[in-house]
């Protein structure tokens, strides 16, 4: 299921159909013209849709490089025809004065450890669910997967109460924030890991269970321990699944607003999403800030999209059941 298409399949069938239709109707040039017209309209409709889909993002990108006065005075499309006066000032302003540089770092500090932690914890559990025998295995697995139905909103207040009780307000050196609980990076890591688990365990268990049984049996016969099997056999064989899951998990956390909004209220520690949302509420129509900030937050996801398109698509598709 990749975006890379089997382009060959469609055109190959086209000529035969064409010939058949000609034979049947007997009208040569006229039906050929009809064929051309329908082919032509397919292109027109499709290109219109592609343009419509790309214009919004393109408008944002162009505007983010325009002078604030230009943005307020004339539409972004004028920048393409008129004199070329692009500037990096908006980015400079947003990064230095509007704290977006810090917010970008915060997003990274939140997303990277959360992704790694959630995959590690999920892989361990999935391994146990797939290959170990213990009483209540299926019951527990169903319970965990059943948590997929829980909207994150539902958990916010109870978890916030718990976090309020366990907050350790010792400042962490370098990355900043509390040691744990509210307004702390470790608190965000643990929360994102927990919220990602039901889906990650679900996906990985199914993948692990599909690995050939012989592999495990011969490894155990050779005297390998469970830990060795996990790190030397299971994880290396699951590369593509882990990559897809990792990308999905990373994007999900990178793009999250709600969890940060509740557990990470301190503007100094806010990730990009929250920082932009605050920017929208305070500078609603100052598009020079908004466009540049939004594009900074999109840069990494877009980079991942173009660099790892295959895994990316698989990850997003697999993740779609999570909702």
């Amino acid at each position, binding site marked *: 299921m990749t975006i890379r298409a089997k382009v060959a399949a469609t055109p190959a069938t086209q000529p035969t159909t064409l010939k058949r239709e000609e034979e049947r109707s007997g009208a040569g040039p006229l039906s050929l013209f009809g064929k051309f017209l329908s082919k032509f309209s397919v292109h027109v409709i*499709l290109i219109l849709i592609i343009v419509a889909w790309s214009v919004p*993002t393109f408008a944002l990108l162009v505007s983010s490089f325009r002078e604030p006065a230009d943005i307020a005075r004339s539409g972004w499309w004028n920048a393409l025809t008129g004199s070329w006066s692009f500037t990096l000032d908006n980015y400079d302003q947003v990064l230095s004065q509007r704290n977006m540089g810090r917010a970008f770092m915060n997003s990274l500090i939140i997303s990277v450890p959360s992704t790694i932690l959630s995959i590690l914890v999920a892989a361990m559990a999935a391994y146990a669910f797939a290959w170990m025998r213990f009483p209540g295995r299926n019951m527990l697995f169903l319970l965990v997967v059943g948590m997929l139905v829980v909207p994150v909103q539902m958990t916010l207040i109870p978890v916030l109460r718990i976090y309020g009780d366990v907050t350790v307000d010792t400042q962490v050196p370098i990355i900043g924030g509390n040691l744990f609980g509210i307004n702390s990076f470790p608190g965000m890591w643990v929360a994102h890991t927990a919220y990602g688990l039901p889906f990650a365990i679900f996906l990985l268990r199914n993948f692990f269970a*599909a690995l050939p049984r012989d592999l495990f049996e011969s490894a155990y016969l050779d005297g390998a321990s469970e830990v060795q099997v996990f790190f030397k056999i299971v994880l290396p064989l699951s590369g593509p699944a882990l990559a897809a899951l990792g990308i999905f998990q990373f994007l999900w956390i990178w793009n999250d607003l709600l969890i940060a909004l509740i557990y990470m209220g301190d503007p100094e520690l806010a990730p990009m999403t929250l920082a932009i949302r605050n920017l929208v509420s305070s500078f609603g129509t100052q598009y020079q800030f908004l466009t540049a900030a939004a594009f900074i937050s999109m840069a990494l996801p877009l980079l991942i999209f173009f660099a790892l398109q295959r895994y990316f698509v698989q990850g997003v598709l697999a993740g779609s059941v999570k909702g």
Partner: protein
Amino acid sequence: MLWLLPALSLVAVFLVWPVIDTVRRSFMNSDSTKYVGFDNYRFIIDNPQPISADTHAALLNNLLWLVVFTGVTVALGLTIAVLAGRVRYEAFAKSAIFIPMAISFVAAAVIWRFMFELNPDQGTINAVVTKLGAEATPWLQDQGGPQTWFTNQGPQDWPQPFQINNFALISVGIWMWTGFAVVILSAGLKGISTEVLEAARVDGANEWQIFWRVIFPQIIPTMVVISTTLVIQALKNFDLVFVLTGGRYGTDIVATLFYKQSFVDRNFGVGAALAVVLLAFVVPIMLVSIRRFQAQEEAR
């Protein structure tokens, strides 16, 4: 069970316990100090504060999201998948439409705030609209009905939920999720055997008939899968509405109203009840989709 311990304890603390606690809280008063029976659910049904907490509007808006967002995304996804399958730049077309999937709802909200901007010298959509001779519309604030799209006339307020700003919000959701539908549907279309299609052509069916009688019935299961995902998205949707309108101008949905009740008005009882209502809608759909996924995995 050291392998399971970290996962199970996290799930217990962050998911299982909060659900139990929220259900309990939904039967308690605003600061969770005493039990009030079904009062909070009655609040949702009776809608006693239509100005500050319009529960009916939120439910109706969510319903509109569910139907329009899901329906249009699937229909558009199928159209694009079919058309893209007939051209050489298929991969490019699908990428262009899939890109919005990568960005956050917050970034999408900024993009579309800019598109919907009232000033026709800034907002792209109003620039086009005014070029075509109509008046610029404040798309995210306008609570008028569909007739004002064309004439700028008619009642200022249209009965919930069919107001312009709801459709504007939903169209942003559609922009983000169509790529998802296209990619899955086009994989489904590739799975239809070319022999069947050829046979239909030999029998004299035209392209239109082939689509509706041969392709469409075979693609229905795929469309059901996509629809369940989209329905869950529509129900849980929060970020888009929160950033674009904050639920003002009658655009609240259950998730944003829940946020306002819980964290702004500090009415934990009603907030919890709204969350439980949301869960009640999501559970059956999710169960069906998990079961189907499980069946697929076993068949593999």
